[in-house]
């Protein structure tokens, strides 16, 4: 980590920019002129990186690439990256870190959607809200996140972690509807509440909800109560938790850990089956 490329937007973008060239693997070993010459599109215009961003190089970098400013219209930053680090000081656009296999992306702001879609490794930290479709695959595709970690300080939106096959998602806020749709493996930890339709068609993996769960799908069956659950090497969630198994409509063996103290409405319904 010696050299750091600092990118600052030259204007406020109002049409989407496709910037999959902003990637440490691509920047590696290139001079500033070569980096300035990288190709991106704004709407239907074919441009180069220096048309939209001011590019500077500093020696004392904490990461390989730092972006200062609002890039919420800029899509596909860090797509497919395998190593290195990107720091974004501001809001970021869709598909950030899509299909990434390694490295780290730190977002000091909000993300719009599809963050870490289909990722296979690496870490994404979002210090704001992460938007919808976090870690979910492209529409129609059946393999979502397969590895790595996504850590969100705020909330995540709807349809997150669809078809998840591995990895960890930790959320300090709330989660939207349809979390973990068709999930097959991996771990999701939601510290606060979760909206309706949690984990439909789930076949494996585990989801931990520390706050209020608005509604549980009827195709899940209560199994037991557990005191604490291990999320990953660092965190253990403190319960007690109801353990639900499902989705029985898919002969699934997934587990939902739903906090007992935060969900008093579940007691009258499910306690008699324990």
């Amino acid at each position: 980590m010696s050299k750091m490329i600092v990118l600052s937007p030259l204007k406020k973008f109002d049409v989407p920019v496709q910037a999959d060239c902003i990637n440490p693997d691509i920047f590696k070993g290139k001079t500033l002129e070569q980096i300035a010459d990288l190709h991106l599109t704004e709407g239907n215009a074919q441009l180069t990186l220096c048309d939209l961003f001011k590019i500077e190089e500093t020696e004392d970098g904490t990461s390989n690439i730092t972006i200062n400013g609002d890039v919420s219209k800029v899509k596909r930053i860090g797509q497919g990256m395998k190593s290195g680090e990107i720091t974004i000081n501001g809001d970021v656009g869709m598909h950030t870190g899509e299909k990434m296999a390694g490295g780290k992306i730190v977002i000091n702001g909000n993300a719009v959607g599809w963050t870490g879609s289909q990722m296979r490794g690496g870490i994404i930290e979002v210090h704001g809200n992460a938007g919808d479709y976090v870690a979910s695959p492209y529409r129609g595709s059946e393999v979502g996140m397969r590895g790595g970690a996504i850590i969100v300080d705020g909330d995540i939106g709807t349809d997150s972690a669809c078809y998840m096959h591995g990895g960890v998602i930790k959320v300090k806020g709330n989660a939207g509807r349809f979390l973990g749709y068709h999930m097959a493996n991996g771990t999701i930890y939601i510290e606060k509440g979760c909206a309706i339709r949690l984990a439909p068609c789930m076949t494996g993996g585990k989801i931990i909800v520390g706050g209020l769960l608005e509604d549980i799908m009827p195709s899940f069956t209560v199994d037991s109560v557990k005191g604490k659950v291990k999320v990953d090497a660092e965190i253990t969630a403190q319960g007690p938790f109801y353990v639900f198994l499902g989705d029985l409509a898919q002969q699934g063996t997934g587990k939902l850990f739903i906090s007992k103290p935060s969900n008093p409405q579940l007691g009258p319904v499910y306690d008699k089956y324990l």
Partner: protein
Amino acid sequence: MTEMLIKNGFVFDPINGINGEKMDIAIKDGKIVASVNEKTAQIVDASGLTVMPGAVDIHTHIAGGEVNTGRMIRPEDHVKDVERKTALTRSGVGYSIPSTFTTGYRYAKMGYTTVMNPSMAPLEAKHTHEELNDIPMLDKASYPLIGDWWFVLEYLSKDKIEECARHVAWMMSTTKGYAIKIVNPGGLESWGFGGNVHSIDDQVPNFCITPREIVRGLAKVNKLLNLPHSIHLHTNNLGLPGNYTTTLDTMKALEDIYTGDRPVGHITHLQFSSFAGDGWGNMKSAAEEISKYINNHNHMTFDMGQVIFSETTTMTADGPFEFTLYQLSGHKWVNSDIETETSGGIIPMHYKRTSAVNAVQWSIGLELALLIEDPWKIFMTTDHPNGGPFFAYPKIMAWLTSRKARMAMLKKCHKKAQARSLLPSIKRELSLYELAIVTRAGQAKALGLKDKGHLGVGADGDVAIYNINPETTDISQKYKTARAAFGSAAYTIKDGQIVVKDGEVVKTPSGKTMWLNVDTNEPCLIDEDMKRRFKDYWTIEYDNYPVFDHCIKVPSPITVKADV
């Protein structure tokens, strides 16, 4: 008056017995002629290049209801393969189910000029022809699915072959079709009731008929009508372990109809019908048994249905088989029952080298193509997109012509499949001449297309020129060179116009749609009862059912004189 002269190429034209001779090919007004005026003609210098007739694909799903539904359910298939618009060509998406224009461009880039869309539900004939109209540069035709068509089943169960023949003739001109397509005979009608047939002597519910009677009856009908192509048959029990016995039974059932002149049946995607074993665990190749039979009998033709290791989409009218695939994979799927005519199913499929079953399937296709001695009997297809996308054809050509290429692939396959494969023991490598048979001449001959697949005087001016010099390049060693050359033709010439040059599209004329106008002695009986049934059972009125002449952009009807 356009004239063209293709000079000094190494010509491979198996129908006329030309094997790599250096000669000139003259084209005038879209037809091949004996000579043209060299001073005024457009000269194409083919010195050091291989010249073949435009390639023909006997079985490829490129248009129609199934293909379109497949396109709809697979956005993730398109996202990884996007074609940009250019000054000449339209944008499109591809991979396993390309959009119509992309289909035409990609086929033409490989030197293909004629393709056959083998699965057209009569009810969806209009839709199919609309899509075929959009596919540029290729001549094409469709085979209506009539193996489970109610009226046919009724006529055949009452043994009324002549009435059935007149009815099929009416169907050909109504749907603007080209050949009789039979899919899992009887099984699709059973599937309407949640069942299937498991051998060729099972009863079809409500019709008092067996698959054997359907296939034999339609083969006789085909003979009475003198249709150019034989019946196009997708066997019962397709894709199930141990189904090779059914395939042999089907072939034996047709033996006595053969009179020694033309084949009476064409079994398509034979690979899927040649499984031995009694479960997926010990499923193995039955290529040896099947090819032994085929080498001793001449009444059928076949195509490979080769598997390509890639992600693809399977689509067939064989609904129960697609249900089997769904049970195996659990993918999203579509299954439909097309009123009284046929069924259909679509499911994504990923053929993996690391899967024993898939690797055995890959091996079966090649074993069949190499063990069947006569190249005029077995043709190269992938049953696009069921076995793999058609743009992988150059790979198959490399595997067929080079032992080195196929052994390199076999080494990457599942160990069990390597142990069970016959490929290591097969030394045969196809020559360019044989390759021209399996990709062009044989297919055109089996289809009964008199002006396709050869370069004799009077043939259509469809020529493919590849960047291979047979004198200096040994394709069995340099298979990668051959693969690249077959993947992007130096020239593709369609009706005497250059449409592809150096693998780039330079012109996009419309291709013709061929269909049969069967001339019977008596017209087909369309009585009040039949019209009433259309009212009762179909969602389309009888008067709106036929494909009208204006539905076809460039019609090319072929008149056939029937014997009934």
